[in-house]
Structure formats: structure tokens, C-alpha cells
């Protein structure tokens, strides 16, 4: 069984508060921490310098989504729509119809939730070249609480025909994703975060849509992770190796289309597949992996993520512990499943 979010009392959270918080993530190999939203802001600015067709739209959150950097450099190509996400998506769609390359940004919960039908009816149905880059995904939004923590966005975007869904794991990958999708014609959803995360991808890494990155393939278990959970998975694999359990890690940064070839290879090599996502286990990466493997190569699977639960307020590092999104819980889940 995966870690359950249920039955955790408030008092337990409170107890955690009194303890000194441990670092939210394992230390990055290179020791650098960058929020993917910050990497986006920088990459967008660079892209704006290179390409005159890039336009950026935001819904009153340009300071937080980091589109503000582009806005400052290219005010004539930046549109603030105010607090109106539905209009944001429609306007971006219209701009794409004149041959522009629009990036529409706001918080993930509003972009994919409030404007879901606009994304369905206009962006995806007409297969428009609109890039939806949302920040503040997952529980690491922290203190703002469940209303601002998107934990269903991947599910909402994944179900839409024509949509590509990408969840970068670190700053380097985010920058690469931005360049790659600017050359891809069609709707893309990119899920970014607020919290600073360690660099996990090697320097020579090249992002390709639909291509997972394999750190290593394990003989006992393989962890398929996205976003911030990649660094957790790497830490968990290190601990497990010490305990004699050979565990591989795969960064499935493109959740749709899923890299089924890599998934199949990893599944055939081991006894257990673990998915790890800062998202509901319903509809997200865990679902995507389970859907594929149950049909093509049934294997023992465990999913780590939010178990049919909303997030809540608190410091990100405490929330991650509270919801079991930790290397420790990955280790525990794997050990339980293998015995």
C-alpha cells in the first residue's frame, strides 16, 4: 500500500512544526537550487530576444510566474489580461491564429481548472500553437494552502486530445523544455513549481518530447518520477542501494506522450515499478504508467502522490513529509512491496 494521507490528525502536523524542519529535498549533486519558475522567466526572456513572434500573456501574476522579466523587456509583446483566466486562454488562442507564438501563464490551478473548457474547446480542439506554462503546481506552493495548490492539473491536461504534458525536474531541464516546445507546433502544457529545487539532470542532458531520461535501471525496483520527485527518487535509490536493493530512477518529464518503450524496458528488468508525483495519484503520472503497464506488461506497481486528498497550508518541507512525498516514504513503500 502507498502512504495514506488519511487519518493524519492536525496534532501530528503541529508536532512536526516544533521539530526542526529537514531540508525539503536531497542535496543537489551540484549543490545548486533553482525554482523552475525562475528558470522559465530567464528562458522566456532569451526566447523573446531570439524570436520576434513570441508573445506572452499573464493574468495578474507576472511577478510570481516570472513572465514579468519578458514584460519589462518586451512590453509591446506582453499582455496582462487581469484576473481573467478564461479570457487569457481565448486571447492567446487568437494571437496564435495570426501566427504568433503565445505563452500563457498563471498559477496551475487557475490555468488548468478555471479555463479548462477554453483549453478544450479552443486550444486543443483546433490544435492551436498555444503554450500553457503554469507555475505554482503541487503542494510546495506551501502556506497559501489547497486553494492555490494544483494537484489535479496533469490529469486535467492529460485527458485532452492533442495536448502534450511536460513536467520538468529542475532549472536546466525547464530551460531546455522551453526551447524545444517553441519549435513544436501544437498545444503544450508545462508544469512548473514555486519552490527552489536541486539540479538533478546531467550537464550533457538533452530534452526531447516523449523521451524519458534513465538515470539507471534497477533489478529490484524502478522509480518513475516527475518534477521535484526525481530528486527524491535519486535519494531513495541511494539509500536502497546501501540496503542491497537495486533501484533504478527514470525521469518521466513528458507525461504525455508517455515514453512507453523506456517504461517497458524498465518493467521487464525488475520486480516493482514505483511512480512518484507531487500530484494526485488519480489521473496523473501514476495513472498513465498503470494504464499502459496493465495492458502491455502487468507488473507490481505502487503509486506515491496525494491519495485522493487536497493539500493544506504549511511550509513546503513539512507538507512534503505530511503527504509522504519524501525519499523515506519511497524507501518504505518499496521495501514493503518487495517483501
Amino acid at each position, binding site marked *: 500500500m502507498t502512504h495514506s494521507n488519511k487519518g493524519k490528525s492536525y496534532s501530528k502536523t503541529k508536532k512536526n512544526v516544533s521539530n526542526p524542519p529537514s531540508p525539503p529535498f536531497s542535496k543537489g549533486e551540484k549543490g545548486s537550487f533553482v525554482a523552475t519558475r525562475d528558470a522559465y522567466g530567464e528562458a522566456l526572456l532569451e526566447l523573446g530576444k531570439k524570436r520576434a513572434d513570441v*508573445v506572452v500573456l499573464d493574468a495578474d501574476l507576472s511577478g510570481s510566474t516570472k513572465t514579468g522579466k519578458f514584460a519589462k523587456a518586451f512590453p*509591446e*509583446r506582453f*499582455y496582462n*489580461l*487581469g484576473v*481573467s483566466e*478564461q*479570457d487569457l*486562454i*481565448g*486571447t*492567446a*488562442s*487568437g*494571437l*496564435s*491564429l*495570426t*501566427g*504568433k507564438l*503565445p505563452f500563457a501563464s498563471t498559477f496551475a490551478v487557475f490555468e488548468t481548472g478555471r479555463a479548462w*473548457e*477554453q483549453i478544450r*474547446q*479552443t486550444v486543443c*480542439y*483546433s*490544435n492551436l500553437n498555444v503554450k500553457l506554462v503554469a507555475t505554482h503546481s503541487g503542494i510546495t506552493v506551501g502556506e497559501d494552502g489547497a486553494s492555490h495548490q494544483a494537484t489535479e492539473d496533469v490529469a486535467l491536461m492529460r485527458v485532452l486530445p492533442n495536448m502534450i504534458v511536460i513536467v520538468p525536474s529542475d532549472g536546466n531541464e525547464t530551460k531546455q523544455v522551453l526551447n524545444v516546445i517553441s519549435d513544436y507546433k501544437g498545444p503544450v502544457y508545462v508544469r512548473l513549481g514555486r519552490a527552489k529545487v536541486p539540479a538533478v539532470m546531467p550537464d550533457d542532458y538533452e530534452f526531447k518530447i516523449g523521451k524519458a531520461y534513465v538515470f539507471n535501471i534497477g533489478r529490484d525496483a524502478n522509480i518513475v518520477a516527475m518534477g521535484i520527485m526525481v530528486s527524491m527518487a535519486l535519494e531513495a535509490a541511494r539509500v536502497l542501494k546501501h540496503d542491497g536493493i537495486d533501484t533504478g530512477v527514470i525521469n518521466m518529464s513528458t507525461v504525455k506522450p508517455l515514453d512507453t518503450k523506456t517504461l517497458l524496458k524498465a518493467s521487464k528488468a525488475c520486480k516493482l515499478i514505483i511512480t512518484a508525483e507531487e500530484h494526485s495519484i488519480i489521473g496523473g503520472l501514476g495513472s498513465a504508467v498503470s494504464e499502459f503497464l496493465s495492458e502491455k506488461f502487468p507488473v507490481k506497481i505502487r503509486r506515491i502522490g496525494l491519495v485522493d486528498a487536497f493539500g493544506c497550508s504549511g511550509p513546503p518541507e513539512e507538507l512534503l513529509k505530511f503527504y509522504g512525498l519524501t525519499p523515506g516514504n519511497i524507501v518504505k513503500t518499496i521495501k514493503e512491496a518487495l517483501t
Partner: protein
Amino acid sequence: MELANTTRDINFLKEKARILRIEILKMLTEAGSGHTGGSLSAADIVTALYFYKMRHKPRDPKWRERDRFILSKGHAAPLLYSALALSGYFDKPLLKTLRKLGSPLQGHPCSKTLPGVEISTGSLGQGLSIANGIAMGLKLDVLSSRVYCLLGDGETQEGQVWEAAMTAAHYRLDNLCAIIDNNGLQIDGHCCDVMSIEPIVNKWEAFGWYVIDINGHDMEAIVNAFDEAETVKMKPVMIVARTVKGKGVSFFEGKVEYHGIAPTPEELERALKELGGDGK
């Protein structure tokens, strides 16, 4: 590629509108379902756009400098399809395939299947935002093309319409002209009973728009309104077209029941008689 033939000849435009209505009724009867009332109410407006005001090339639907038409009230698809066929975007016999499996003429307009349809619509309230985005893009490219967007009156109950209303005024989209087909009826009844939308003119003026209030079946008034709209600077224009649902066929006029149903073959026969010939 040639520009579409357009004219300011009012009698010619009236005759075009008559033929458009005939094609709408014939295709709806053939399909056996679809939206009759709202297609007929906006027929004169759309005729004036496709055969007088808009610069477009039916043989080059993606011509960069074309004027754009967004049918935000996508359920009036038969009206758009008639205008496109009569303009020469595709052959008239295709109209008979409306709503059939494999037809590019989907129940609501689909831009992926039919050239000339700028964007897929059908879910109400979304067209004006799209029109705004196009207007912004045209301005960035310093093109003089204009954007026309037709909304239903019931459609303005959607919140997104008012988000878009603010955006168009804020960005001073004077290359945008929207039209409300104000036939006063929606599926569940009179707009004033279901969810009052009045005072329309005051609302749009308060949102920063230049509003022109006309009889939406007076071809001279329609043509004049589109000309006037072009002279307005720094503001988007809203033409409030007062129309009659089902206009042109006495037994459909003002009847809410004909919002979403097609004529029977017998009704078609009677309707064609009223409209004076089958338009062949």
C-alpha cells in the same frame, strides 16, 4: 487569388440574404436537426459582412491580410456555411452533408475540417476573447485587416464575454467590431425571463465600447453601421442588432421552439414559398 466580389448595392444584398435563408432551411431540413431560429435572425448581418464589408479570398482562406469573422454563437453554423458556400469557399452540394458522419460541416463550426472557419466554436462565450487576440496580433503585424465577431444575446450571460469586453476596451482594439444578434430569445424562453441582459447598450458603453444600435434586418442600416464602425478610433465597436428569431419565415418568427430544431419537409416547402422560390 481573387478578392471576393462585394457590393454596396442594397437590393443585391437583400437578394443574397434571401438566398442565404433558403440554403439554411434546405440544409437544416436535410440534416434533420440544427438551429433554425438563430441562423435566420443573423442572416442579414452575415450577408452584409461576406458580400459587402469583408475583404476576403474564398480561394485563399488563409490570406494574411483578410478580414476575420468569428462566429461566437457557433450554433448558427448553417448561416456561416451558407455564406462560405455562396462566397465560393466550397461547392454548394457540400451543404447537404451538414451534421453527417465524415462531413467537414460539423454541427458546430470546426476550423480543422472546413477552410474559411477561422476557429472552432460552439461553446458560448468564448469567441470575443479569440477575436481580441486576433485583433492584437493584427496590430502587432501593422495590418489594416479588421475582425468581426458575432455573438448571441443569450450568450452575453457568459462571464467570459465581460472579461473580453474589458480587454478589448483596455487594449483599445479599434480594429474589432462585434455584433450582438439581439433576437430576445434563448433556449428556455425570452432572455428577459431567463436572465435579463438589458440594458445592453448602456452595459457595453459602460465597458468602454462605441455602441451602434440598429434594426438588424434593415440592410441599409447594417451596411451603414459597418461603415461607421470603421471610422471609430481607440475603441472597439459593438453593433447591437435588434432582430427577430426565425426572421423570414412567418411561422418560425419569434418562436422559441425553433431555437434548436430543423424544419420538417412540409415546413420547408411552406417556408420556400414564403421566401419566393427555392433559390436555384
